[in-house]
């Protein structure tokens, strides 16, 4: 029974996208959106029912085999339903359903309304394939398909040149990460002869040496960094804000970008054997968190603030799973998808209200005009800053606590995490202040209004989740810990701090949050300070890293390709070939004058032949 439910969870959105693909144009405006939302809600329902027996502690993992896909690799299209995938499925379909509902309002009046929901449904289906895969090959299928959907959705308004370019950039940078993933698959198959998770993880200790395990781990990290926008492959996420805001909420905040975290958590057995690889994951996570937080501080576009904030929060999760605190990582993944989705949808409703205006410099004083959005975003703001009892506090604190508990060098990472927490609080408060408080700085002719109910309901729902979400796994009642035990018990190396250290650590992170909020409140309380200094511009442009990438890879890459194509290939190899043709013609030309046409020249030729023949006979006859 659960098997069919799990399959249904994928087939519903997949079916929805196929139906909408063909019937999308003909359906009246809201109907397409409603169908899409219903399919995802249905998927959520199925997943919930299927997950019930996990809650009662009885259920155990099962695999659903659809059909035999690649016989030579022993890979079949099959799904694995265990507690971790159940949790991820619930998060994906739950947040996904809310965002679908929100999109009906946000995308109202768009020319390709139906097409939008086709892609959105396809994305949910692909993400579920990724999350429910029970072997590396299926995981890779989901991995690439979500990349496809992100490409389609980022460049949804493809009439805009920048949107199309952003979509292509996202896909290609993801693809760069996927190269690492493919090479990891090669190594895995070479050593295990199979892609199935269970066989690989069980026989990992005997088959793998630490060297190979580290290699696989690092390669998987490359893939994860590509997908979850970590250093150095993060450049595509800020540009991905070109897509409609619900897309940013769903793909670039709640679900797709967390795929990297899920993958590292899922392959815990391999990372467990490769401390260096796990350490690298954590370091990359911490570095990205701090780096992105500094950039977020200086952004003027409301969506780019949230984009860099997402990169930063993902850094936290990477730090968590890197430190083998898998439960903490997954927990933060869940809570983050609640409040970050809320922030994005809130920003979307602000933009919707301001008729497309995204620059915070032209906002301010919106709290009176958009009370519901303001209220829900306040909850999210407090949650992400880590103010108890909201969700963000518990999950972030657990990560920092577990990292601190690992002791030794890990405490440095804890310090970085704490500093990032402060910065997070600062830039979030800055964003709230610039948008909702202070004097209105609207352009003339812009009079913001609250978004319609269909958009505010999801905001309220997500706000509720952001409040309640944290209680799932507090130090007092670690329900999530037990829920995920069967998945992680073999690989758990870190454990949540208890007693006095826990309280001290919690206190430290709350203080950091309060300092951050205070600083920002002081700075932006009455006037908008001018932020055009060199430091601000540097951070605002993301330390010009993206531009450097552009120069190094894009431009010089094209130059090299141009040289290779038009000089080396066209003139070099092709030249050689055409040259041979021309050579034969030229030599032909040299021989031509010999044919003078006079009979006597030919006669001389005959005599020459005779003389040569005579000479040869004499020579052969022995002089």
């Amino acid at each position: 029974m659960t098997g069919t439910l799990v399959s249904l969870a994928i087939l519903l959105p997949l079916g929805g996208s196929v139906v909408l693909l063909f019937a999308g144009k003909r359906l009246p405006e809201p109907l397409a959106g409603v169908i899409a939302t219903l399919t995802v809600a249905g998927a959520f329902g199925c997943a919930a029912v299927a997950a019930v027996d996990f809650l009662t502690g009885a259920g155990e993992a099962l695999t659903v085999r659809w059909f035999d896909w690649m016989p030579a690799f022993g890979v079949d299209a099959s799904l694995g339903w265990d507690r971790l995938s159940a949790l991820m499925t619930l998060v994906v379909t739950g947040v996904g359903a809310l965002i679908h509902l929100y999109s009906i309002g946000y995308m109202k009046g768009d020319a390709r309304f139906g097409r939008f929901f086709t892609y959105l449904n396809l994305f949910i289906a692909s993400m579920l394939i990724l999350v429910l895969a029970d072997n590396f090959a299926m995981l890779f299928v989901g991995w690439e398909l979500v990349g496809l959907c992100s490409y389609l959705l980022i460049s949804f308004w493809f009439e805009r040149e920048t949107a199309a370019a952003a979509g292509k950039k996202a896909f290609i940078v993801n693809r760069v990460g996927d190269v690492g993933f493919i090479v990891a698959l090669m190594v895995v198959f070479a050593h295990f002869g199979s892609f199935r998770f269970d066989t690989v993880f069980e026989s990992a200790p005997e088959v793998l040496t630490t060297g190979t395990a580290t290699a696989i781990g690092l390669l998987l990290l490359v893939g994860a960094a590509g997908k979850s926008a970590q250093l150095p492959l993060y450049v595509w996420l800020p540009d991905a804000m070109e897509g409609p805001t619900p897309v940013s909420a769903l793909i670039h905040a709640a679900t797709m970008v967390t795929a990297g975290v899920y993958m590292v958590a899922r392959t815990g057995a391999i990372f467990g054997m490769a401390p260096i690889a796990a350490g690298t994951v954590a370091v990359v996570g911490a570095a990205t968190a701090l780096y992105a937080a500094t950039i977020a501080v200086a952004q003027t576009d409301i969506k780019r603030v949230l984009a860099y904030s997402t990169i930063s929060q993902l850094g936290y999760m990477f730090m968590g799973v890197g430190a083998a605190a898998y439960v903490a990582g997954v927990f933060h993944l869940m809570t983050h998808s609640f409040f970050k989705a809320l922030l994005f949808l809130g920003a979307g409703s602000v933009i919707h209200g301001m008729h497309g205006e995204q620059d915070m410099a032209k906002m301010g004083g919106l709290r009176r005009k958009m009370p519901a959005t303001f209220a829900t975003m306040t909850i999210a703001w407090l949650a992400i800053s880590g103010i108890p009892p909201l969700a963000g506090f518990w999950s972030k604190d657990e990560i920092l606590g577990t990292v601190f508990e690992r002791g030794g060098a890990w405490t440095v990472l804890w310090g970085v995490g704490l500093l990032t927490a402060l910065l997070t609080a600062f830039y979030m408060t800055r964003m709230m202040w610039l948008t909702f408080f202070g004097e209105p700085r609207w352009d003339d002719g812009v009079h913001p209004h609250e978004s319609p109910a269909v958009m505010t309901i999801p905001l309220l729902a997500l706000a509720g989740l952001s409040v309640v979400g944290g209680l799932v796994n507090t130090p007092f009642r670690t329900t999530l810990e037990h829920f995920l035990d069967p998945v992680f018990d073999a690989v758990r190396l870190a454990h949540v701090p208890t007693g006095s250290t826990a309280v001290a650590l919690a206190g430290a992170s709350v203080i950091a949050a309060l300092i951050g909020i205070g600083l920002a409140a002081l700075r932006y309380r009455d006037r908008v300070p001018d932020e055009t200094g060199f430091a601000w511009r540097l951070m605002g442009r993301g330390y010009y890293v993206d531009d450097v990438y552009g120069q190094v890879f894009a431009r010089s890459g094209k130059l090299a390709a141009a040289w290779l194509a038009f000089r080396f290939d066209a003139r070099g190899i092709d030249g050689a070939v055409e040259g041979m043709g021309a050579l034969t013609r030229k030599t032909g030309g040299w021989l031509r004058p010999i044919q003078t046409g006079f009979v006597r020249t030919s006669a001389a030729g005959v005599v020459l032949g005779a003389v040569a023949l005579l000479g040869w006979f004499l020579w052969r006859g022995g002089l």
Partner: protein
Amino acid sequence: MVELTLFVIFGLAAVFGAVSMVWARNPVYSALGLMLTMLSIAVFYVSNGGYFVAVVQVIIYAGAVMTLFLFVIMLIGVDKSEERTERLPVQRPLALGLLALFAAGVLWAGRLVWVTGAPAGVVPVDGSIEAIGTELFRKWVLPFEVTALLLIIAAAGAVALALFREDGGDE
């Protein structure tokens, strides 16, 4: 002893005829020179035992072929002295060079043993008509028939050339 004198006299005649043929300004003189050479060669045939061949030489070669030549010379007009301009600058030296080479080659070959062979006082070969006839129809019958065919073709060719002038012929 007789053969030596014959050889000397007619050898010189042959060479003189040949040279005059090449050197003569007027084609008629060259024709006559050639005729002299042919006749002296006929004599050599006799001295070498080729009686039938000698007769044939005289009748056909000296007779028919040379008269044909003379006839054509008359037709074309005997007074056509060649213009002196030499179109092919490279031709003369090249020709001389080749001739020198060829002559050297032949002389070099002449040194080989089998050519100088034993002196044949008496003429062993009987070149009478019977001997040639029997030989012709025993060992050489196929080439004999083929040459018959050749002659017919040559005759047809000559007639064709004469008759099928392009219709725009200038007469």
